[in-house]
């Protein structure tokens, strides 16, 4: 198993009465694209802030690259590229000079890298313009170039597509997928479910500062795949299904069918159990739950 690049244990942050993050234990394995998914106010930005040493945790421990952070995060932060919310740069400097400054204070001085990054994020033509003349989308692109300075091992991206138009979003997501290939680890905090679904391998779903579900994106979606079942006698079918321990809830699926909370690969066993009491399926198919449905279920219900 790959080593964890980020590991938190019991991470807690209170701002006065506000409990922004509560007892967060998280592991982000090396080389994954990890999503922090949650509505606004779920604690995503606070978590990234604590990882970067910008916010002091109230309690808990943080390990970055296998080393516990005790006090200064400066050494670890140099291996991290990050964007937090709307990127802030010096308004009177050009995009290129902003990147040169941040590259410089991180210990680098490579103009070729800056040209490459400006090209990568589509800002080469406006590199000489002052930052305060940039549109919101351009600011985000510059933020992405800033995060990629020094080819970091870990990317912490907080809402990186905020303010981008749909084509810009698609480009950035494609770029994030490419960045996540290989050994680089990406942590993507977002409230956009489809973004996380498209980009991330693993996801932790947050609500009011707590992780309420975590796992592989495909598992979380797959875990909620259900069977749509119509039978010759639904009443008897409900009784039979209630006795099967591997069947969860059975609810009305509309159109005279039932929605059965059971793994799709048990469809055969389910048919066999019904056939034993002379009830036969007239319709049996897998219904795939989107991450969005799952997210709404767990955030509204407080857990999976």
């Amino acid at each position, binding site marked *: 198993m790959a080593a964890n690049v980020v590991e938190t244990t019991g991470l807690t942050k209170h701002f006065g009465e506000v409990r922004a993050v509560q007892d967060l234990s998280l592991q982000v394995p090396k080389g994954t694209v990890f999503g922090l998914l949650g509505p606004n106010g779920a604690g995503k930005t606070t978590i990234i802030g604590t990882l970067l*040493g910008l916010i002091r945790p109230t309690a808990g421990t943080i390990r970055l690259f296998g080393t516990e952070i005790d006090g200064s995060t*400066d050494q670890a932060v140099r291996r991290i590229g990050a964007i937090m919310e709307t990127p802030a740069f010096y308004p009177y400097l050009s995009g290129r000079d902003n990147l040169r400054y941040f590259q*410089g204070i991180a210990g680098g001085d490579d103009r070729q890298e800056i040209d490459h990054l400006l090209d990568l994020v589509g800002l080469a033509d406006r590199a000489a313009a002052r930052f305060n003349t940039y549109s919101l989308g351009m600011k985000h692109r510059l933020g992405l170039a800033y995060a990629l300075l020094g080819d970091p091992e870990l990317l912490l991206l907080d809402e990186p597509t905020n303010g981008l138009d749909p084509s810009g979003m698609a480009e950035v997501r494609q770029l994030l997928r490419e960045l996540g290939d290989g050994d680089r680890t990406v942590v993507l905090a977002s409230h956009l479910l489809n973004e996380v679904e498209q980009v991330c391998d693993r996801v932790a779903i947050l609500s009011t500062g707590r992780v309420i579900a975590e796992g592989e994106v495909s598992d979380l979606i797959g875990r909620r795949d259900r069977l749509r079942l119509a039978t010759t006698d639904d009443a008897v079918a409900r009784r039979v299904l209630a006795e099967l321990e591997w069947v969860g809830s059975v609810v009305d699926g509309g159109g005279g069918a039932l929605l059965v909370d059971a793994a799709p690969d048990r469809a055969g066993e389910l048919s066999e159990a019904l056939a034993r009491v002379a009830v036969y399926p007239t319709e049996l198919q897998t219904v795939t739950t989107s991450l969005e449905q799952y997210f709404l279920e767990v955030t509204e219900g407080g857990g999976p």
Partner: protein
Amino acid sequence: MSWPTLARWEWFKLRGRRVIWILLVILTVFSSLMVVIRYADYEFQKDRDVVDEIIFLPDAPVLGTLEVELNCTAFLAGVPITEVPEPYTLDDIDLPGTGRKCRQEAEGIQSRLDKLVDAFTMPGAVEKALRWTGLISIPIAAFLTVLVVGSEYGWGTLRTTLMKGPGRRRLLSVKLGLVALLLAGAWLVALLLIIATSLVTTALVSEVSHGDMSAAAFGLIARDLGRAWFAALPYISLAALLSVLFSRWAGGTLAATGMSIGYFLIELFTVGRLIKLFDGVAAFRWFGSFVEYDLGWNTAAWLFGRGGEPIAGFALAGAIGTADYPGDVHAFLVQLAFILVLGAVAFSLFQRRDVTGPSG
């Protein structure tokens, strides 16, 4: 990341800020202007007739004393008085008394002209201009500090900067060090401008010449330069502290600027007057001890306390004649204590505070 490298990149960033250059130009131009003003004053005063209100009759029997404006320059040059307001006659004039009064007046004006000459010729021009510029440099240094430290909070760039790992303590040290260096650089430019202005203005006046231009005199100039620079350092610490303290407010930068400059101005305009007001009042005897350790009072002592010219009009020195400035060592130690204590609190807050967003 080494300190010089971080300083290099901070400078790379700061040099693009027009407002910083404007402040430094104000400082240097002001220093030169102090010499020009003295020169212009001298040119204006030197050929003016000495005119005074002369009391003709110290003990007039009917109308009482009468004051009449008299051209002393002409009178002392031997031009007789020919007209006297009625009902007086020429015999009523106290000629010896009038002569004494006119001579006193002429001596006073000559003394004033000598001071003006000293203030625009070398090396006196440097000493006088540096003192006044030292006073002006304080709000400029405070404003510069707020621009360099406080703006980072206002723009949200502190977070973007810290995310590249320069280290909080090192970053603040480099920023404050750079402000102090910028100020020192401006002082050097100001010194050259003062010298150049002094050379030009002195060359324009045929009857005056430069004073002592020995190495010792230039040694004193270097000392004065160092003093003027040092006087601004406590206010850099103060402005840094206020910038960090108010970082969480939306208008934090404005508040820090206002309070650091306001603190300086309030002291400037109140402490001297309060010393005068409380002088001899038993209930306020403690105030005398308090101002011994007051920053503004010690800064004034540091800049003006060496038998310097009277700072008439400036309330900070409003107590001249009723209170003594603290000694040099005392003033130095008090300023140093302010630099260290305010700086330590600023660093501690900067190190510990969460940086949660654009406002810090």
